């Protein structure tokens, strides 16, 4: 067994679970704003007013009998994603990339019948994936066509960019790449690769999988050292605007880059995980304290982003 001493962790400024919950989430996130981020449908509506784009909404399945409509709509689609509106941690998300006869093809390449998809919808409506087991609605979204410059790093699935927004300031970011282990999903605890991104430039720093440092993607074999995210400042600004839209002081913003539509907001998270620190090789605490110590916060998203790029950039 290998351990790290608490003193060393403190020196590195690693934010831990208990402190995140007590000092940041419960202090900066108002309870009443939670439904905004816990329900993807509400998130879509809330952020659209602030000029933050999201994947196109194709259908909302609210009732059991509406599932039959789903079959008709899905008939004409090449690719789509089914998501539970109140799902968390990527649970219950099924991504369909194409068709194979009567069956649909999942992002992983596995085939799935319409009946299976309908069962999945039933499960979503019954609240199997929702946070408290309450009844839920299913949303069907247009499939995101990830920009090839990033998509090539990912094994199937769509790479997304997680940015931690603290009081409107982007404090840390990482690129999440799906792997064979993660079944096309970009969740780190399921085995996705996390690549730390420099806030100043959008260039990659370190990469981890299952909390262990790596240099090459385990499935695509590509080096993860010199990834550069295009139009980085715009993405940060878009993420920063979510603060105005939701009022949440501490949240994770998940973005994807679509070939045609550019950066899109995938979802917001009021309880973002801590693995981003491993991907960046740095603790969150010094940056969070830097923002907390600001005497005069900046009011526009652009000013905040510029301050953060200057304060937290490494290159």
């Amino acid at each position: 067994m290998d351990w790290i001493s608490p003193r060393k962790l403190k020196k590195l400024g690693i934010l831990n679970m208990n402190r995140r919950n007590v000092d940041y989430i419960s202090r900066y996130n108002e309870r009443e704003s939670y439904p905004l981020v816990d329900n993807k449908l509400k998130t879509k509506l809330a952020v659209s007013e602030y000029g933050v784009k999201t994947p196109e909404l194709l259908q909302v399945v609210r009732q059991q009998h509406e599932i039959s409509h789903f079959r008709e709509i899905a008939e004409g689609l090449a690719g789509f994603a089914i998501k539970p509106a109140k799902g968390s941690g990527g649970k219950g998300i099924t991504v369909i990339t194409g068709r194979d006869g009567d069956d649909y093809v999942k992002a992983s390449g596995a085939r799935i019948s319409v009946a299976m998809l309908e069962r999945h919808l039933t499960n979503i409506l019954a609240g199997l994936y929702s946070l408290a087991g309450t009844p839920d609605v299913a949303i069907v979204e247009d499939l995101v066509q990830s920009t090839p410059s990033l998509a090539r790093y990912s094994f199937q699935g769509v790479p997304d960019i997680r940015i931690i927004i603290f009081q409107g300031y982007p404090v840390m970011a990482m690129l999440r790449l799906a792997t064979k282990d993660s079944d096309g999903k970009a969740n780190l605890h399921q085995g996705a690769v996390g690549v730390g991104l420099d806030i100043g430039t959008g260039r990659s720093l370190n990469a981890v999988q299952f909390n262990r440092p790596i240099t090459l993607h385990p499935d695509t074999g590509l080096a993860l050292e010199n990834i550069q995210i295009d139009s980085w400042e715009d993405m940060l600004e878009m993420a920063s605007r979510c603060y105005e839209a939701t009022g949440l002081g501490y949240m994770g913003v998940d973005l994807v880059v679509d070939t045609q539509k550019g950066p899109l907001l995938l979802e917001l998270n009021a309880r973002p995980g801590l693995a981003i620190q491993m991907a960046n090789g740095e603790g969150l605490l010094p940056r969070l304290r830097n923002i907390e110590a600001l005497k005069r916060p900046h009011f526009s998203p652009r000013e905040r982003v510029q301050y953060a790029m200057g304060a937290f950039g490494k290159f």
Partner: protein
Amino acid sequence: MTVRSRAPFYAFVLLLIAAGISIATWRHIELGVPWMTGEQRPVWMIEARVDFVGQDEAAQISLHIPEQPPGFSILTEQAASPGYGFSIIETSGSRRAEWTKRDVSGPQTLYFKAQFVPDDSAGESARSRKPRPTPTFWEEPQATAVREVLRQANERSSSPESLTRELIRLLQPDSRTQNTTLLVADDNYLQMLVRMLNHAGIPARTADALKLEDARRRQQLMQFLQIHNGDRWLTFDPRTAEQGVPENLLLWRQGSESLLDVVGGDNSQVSFSMLRQTVPALQLATLEANKNGLGVLGFYQLPIEEQSMFRMLLLLPIGALIVAFMRIVIGVRTSGTFMPVLIAVAFVQTTLVPGLIAFLSVVAIGLLLRGYLSSLNLLLVSRISALIILVIFITAGLSIIGYQMGFNTGMTVTFFPMVIIAWTIERMSILWEEEGAREVMVQGSGSLFVAICAYLAMNTSLAGHLTFNFPELHLVVLGLILLMGQYTGYKLSELRRFTPMKAYD
């Protein structure tokens, strides 16, 4: 976005913990509820035996019994006397056991038993009225002798107590003078002493006491002298002039005039037997609590059935404390926050090993059946409902099979909360589909580990004893849980999780 000072919070928690501990300590001191289980206290069992011969007529026998002997408290009282009506009659200043029977003939024996607990705090009951010395009349030449002796004693003393001591010393056989020899004969010594003290203006009376020695039979009462110093009654040994009541002396009669009155019988006499017993300190405390009203704060006055329910209920906070500690400080992952506590409660009823086997087999069979259910494409609510019914089938099946095979422990499966098990199976099954078998093993074994820890803590006799007899200690548990809610340090599991960060140091 409010940053409040934590000081009031910590003060509040401190207050909770201090209140819990001090109430428990007070209960320990005041009611004698022991900290540990199995503590024993000595108790004196004293049996008064009354013998008399009936005279073919209605009989009424009245025996003085102690009301509040100094240094002792009465635990139980009972009379054994077949065919007699019995009651305890309390009049001002005296308490008497009264036996009655319409037709009595021949030798009769009556018993009265009482248990006395040594109790330093038990004193004489406060008297509102100060007694007056009874006036006495002396004839010559006694009057002169009494005056002379009292003058001598008075000269060498300064207070009622010292006067009494001097008087006793003067009346002792070895120091007798002409005056005292005139007054005192062996059989009237104590009566004379009482009369002389009353004459001197000091209220005095006699008292009967028992010397407590283990396993003695046929003991007689010994006479003692009591004087009132204007404040309270003081006891003197009339032979040695020693003041005070020794530890092994039980004052059976004080205040009242007669020890035994028998109407309708003759040849009556009283003798005493005694035995030193030990009783669990807890039982003593329970009995005392019921008597003196402080017991309102405990559970002893509830019906037994409710008491045993509370016994179980009061263990839950211990389990909650363990779960909070395991999750917040250690960082064990469990499936369902308090599922481990409920499983631990079931373990308390089933004992550990049979409980573990039963639980694991129910969950394993449930998971297999759930696999079939998931292919049926059911709505969640009906799937859970079906699962609950299946879980009941499984437990019933296991109980019957276990019973037929001769394992009575098979029956204990029924203690598990069915709904919780059904949900556990459902959650495990989803976890299996989504995160793989490894996560199921991690969370499953984490839950079991926490459940076993909670079980071990809840199952110690000390935990059961303290939580039930000192319910206020739950304030301390509450305080600790609140404190843990403010713990922002690293979990033990995080020290391992963040190990790769060493590379960036």
